[in-house]
């Protein structure tokens, strides 16, 4: 038994692991404060973290050659899972995003965060002799397939994250400046089209609420206002106990999931936020260093893409909760309550960890 642990830990970057544990403890604490330390949410999250760490260990010892070899199958399976969800998924609040497994619900779009980059990166070696433009077009096509399926669920936020992960790979892989400019131009031209033809009314409403949340305080603007109040009332050190908190009195719902940052801000104030950012900064710094120092181009690319997705989701969630961004259903990575998101990120970090350990073993 001791040997097994030694074996596992020997394959893990100690600093990364410790920072990860600190962040997960932070998460437990916040979920406890938001939903109650005796709530099922807290207990389930405890179970998720425990399971997640086991998954982390197991994935850390995975041989990644196998992963790259079967990347096409993994990608196709992910897409099928998305389609399966679209047909048999559990409908919550008008969108079919989840597959219900009893103890936890799997948000199938989360899987794509993991599998799309693997597939794309594995193709780089395969397309070595093809032109850059060909590779980029194929990548774009591959990224758009899951994006459109997720858009139909509908889940604009997750869809955009998936699409972005593809775009990040194309960008990192050396997209020329000219094409970047053409891309931006194309996006700007398509924007009005998207506004009138793709976005649903509630999605437009969320964007408009961002501009003036008080215009519609009871419908779309409610979350934005209540979370601003929660954050704003936190002050420098957090709200003193003489004031009742927003989440205790249920003014801000879903604080243990997407809005958990509001609980942090309300209870620990601006200072608490800064400390929180510092811990994440150290964690991300560690990931960045590992990613840059990987030995193969495709490994670096995969690790960097994962790091980018992680940072992007982290920032988008906080921007959303603090009223800088429309309310899209993106949870705070590693902190928000929920199994699928947590597992996906832990697998990402486990893969990076594994790449890091195996870098000496893989002849490049």
């Amino acid at each position, binding site marked *: 038994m001791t040997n097994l642990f030694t074996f596992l830990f020997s394959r893990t970057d100690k600093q990364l692991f410790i920072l990860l544990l600190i962040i997960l403890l932070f998460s437990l604490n916040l979920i406890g404060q938001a939903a109650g330390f005796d709530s099922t949410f807290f207990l389930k999250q405890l179970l998720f973290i425990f399971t997640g760490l086991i998954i982390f260990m197991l994935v850390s010892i995975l041989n990644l050659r196998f992963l790259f070899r079967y990347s096409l199958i993994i990608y196709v399976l992910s897409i099928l899972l998305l389609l399966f969800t679209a047909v048999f998924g559990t409908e919550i609040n008008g969108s079919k995003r989840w597959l219900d497994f009893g103890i936890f619900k799997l948000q199938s779009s989360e899987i794509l965060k993991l599998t799309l980059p693997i597939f794309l990166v594995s193709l780089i070696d395969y397309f070595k002799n093809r032109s850059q433009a060909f590779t980029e077009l194929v990548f774009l096509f591959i990224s758009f397939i899951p994006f459109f399926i997720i858009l139909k669920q509908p889940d604009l936020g997750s869809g955009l994250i998936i699409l972005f992960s593809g775009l990040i790979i194309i*960008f*990192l892989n050396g997209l020329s400046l000219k094409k970047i400019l053409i891309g931006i131009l194309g996006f700007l031209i398509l924007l009005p089209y998207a506004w009138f033809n793709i976005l649903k009314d509630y999605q437009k409403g969320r964007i408009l609420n961002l501009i003036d949340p008080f215009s519609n305080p009871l419908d779309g603007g409610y979350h934005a206002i209540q979370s601003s109040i*929660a*954050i*704003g009332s*936190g002050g420098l050190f957090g709200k003193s106990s003489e*004031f009742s908190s927003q989440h205790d009195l249920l003014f801000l719902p879903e604080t243990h999931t997407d809005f958990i940052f509001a609980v942090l801000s309300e209870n620990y104030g*601006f200072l608490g*936020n800064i400390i929180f950012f510092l811990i994440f900064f150290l964690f991300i710094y560690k990931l960045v260093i590992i990613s840059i120092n990987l030995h193969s*181009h495709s490994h670096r690319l995969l690790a960097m893409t994962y790091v980018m997705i992680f940072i992007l989701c982290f920032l988008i969630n906080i921007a959303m909760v603090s009223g800088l961004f429309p309310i899209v259903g993106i949870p705070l990575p590693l902190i928000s309550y929920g199994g699928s998101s947590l597992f996906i990120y832990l697998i990402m970090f486990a893969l990076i960890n594994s790449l890091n350990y195996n870098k000496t073993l893989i002849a490049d």
Partner: protein
Amino acid sequence: MLNNRFILVRRFNILLAILSLFLLLITIRLFWLQIYKNDFYLERSKSNSERIEPIKSLRGLIFDRNDNILAENILTYNIEIDIENKSTEDLNSIIGELSKILSISEHERDQFFKMRSERKFLRKIPLKLNVNNEELTFFASKKFLFPNVTLKEEFLRSYPHGKENAHLIGYINRISKKDVEKFENDPELLNNYFGMSHIGKQGIENSFENSLRGKSGFKKIRVNAKNSFIAEIENKKALDGEDLILSIDLNLQRKSHELLKNFKGSLIMTDISNNEVLAYQSNPTFDPNLFVNGISFTDWDKLNTDPSKPMLDRVTNAVYPPGSTIKPFLSIAGLENNVINEDYSINDPGFYQLPKTKKIFMDWKKEGHGNVNIITAIAESCDVYFYDLAYRLGIEKMDNSLRKFSFGQKTGINLPIEKRGILPSPEWKLKHHKKKWNAYETINTSIGQGDFLSSPAQLVHGLNILLNNKQMPPLSLIKDKFSDVPLSDEKITDEKYIEIVKRGMQEVTSSNGTFRSIAKNNYNKIAGKTGTAQVFSLKSQAYDEDNIADHLKDHSLFIGYAPYDNPQVSIAVIIENGGHGSTVAAPIAKKMIDFYFETIK
């Protein structure tokens, strides 16, 4: 490969740099929310969870001088709907469901939505007021079906002797949009009305609104987002309104209501010694209870289009030519200006020719009164005597004397509105008609015609000044409430002039006076003066009481007091289009005075 790695890392760094800027932006945003706007959001967070619930004050009761209740609060049950976060459709469906178990009229529904749009600060709005016992028990058994509907205990204003006191007490009604606008400029007042739904609109209810209403209190509680009670933070008790004891006597109100029942007119009876009002009656009248919860359109329309104007308070808000009732006051003017004296007499041929003109003024008695002095002139209401008096006195001196009896001025009675009437004078005419005064107008004024207008309240007030021979406090509807303005005890004229005029008024009820029908049974020693006010001057035809449209008939007036040897009560009566003062108004006054002495003394 190295080149490849260089590009990758540079690209990666570019993305990291962009995201760092994003992080900086977020940090600035958090700084803005948490440090810069902290106070604002703390306040918002507090108000988020604090609810203020009004505590209504109980409106003061109104009693007559003998502790009979005239306005009270009775316990009723209202059905209210919590409108928070409810759209019009939601509310319509709730009301639709409710109407399956309760009768809800179109009017109630309209009132509900009207209140919702006008009273922005209300969370619960009454739908059905004063639910009867049967519906009450039925609703209570089904209440669980309506989570947003509550049964609210409320004290409802009630006027047990509604019609008999309608113009005097007035009524309360729901606070209107106009009232709210008025409050908005006065935060103190707005506080006093917190949670209140009614306000005094007319009569005593309006003029004593501030003391009757009291001040509402509030309860500040902490609630959660589901509006469930968490804790009480502050509790400020309501200050109930003060009770009011009127100088009015309910028995006299009832009697006067009965006496005026078949007439259009009014009556006011006062205590001569202190100017307190004992009876205040105007007819036709209305039921003030109709107003308490918002009068229905049909009722309101009926009251407003009725040609007999039941809403008009004919005691203080209607003015009439005083007619011959002005003669006692004019006599004082003549006496104190030495135009006439006790011994002065004239010969009345039945008409008067205005000196230096060919203008002829007829006496009401065509054959004339013969030789008349001041006493017989008052007793028989000799017009020619007063034409002559007025001509020799002149309008200025006449006005100066009449003004002492408060003609053309408000009596100061404690009611919201009062007409001041008109005491005509050259200045008044110049101001209002841009014309010079004519001598014949002096003659018209002398018999209370022309532009002369006064209300019954003014007449009785003037009479009380005359009988007391000093300035009187304003007419008061409140018992034992003495004016805070000190009044001089200075006599307004020589006591002997008063005695002469009183003798004249005593003669009115003698076998020679205009009210001689009373002479045989004047056991309460009533004195007074009759009056017949022309509504319409008939140019060529003679006035024929039997062949004239009702609304053109003369008004019948009487002012009087009793007993003449020790005056205690005074009265003014007007009956619109009633004809001669002696035939309608005076008998009513006698019945009132007789009733007063029978029952009160």
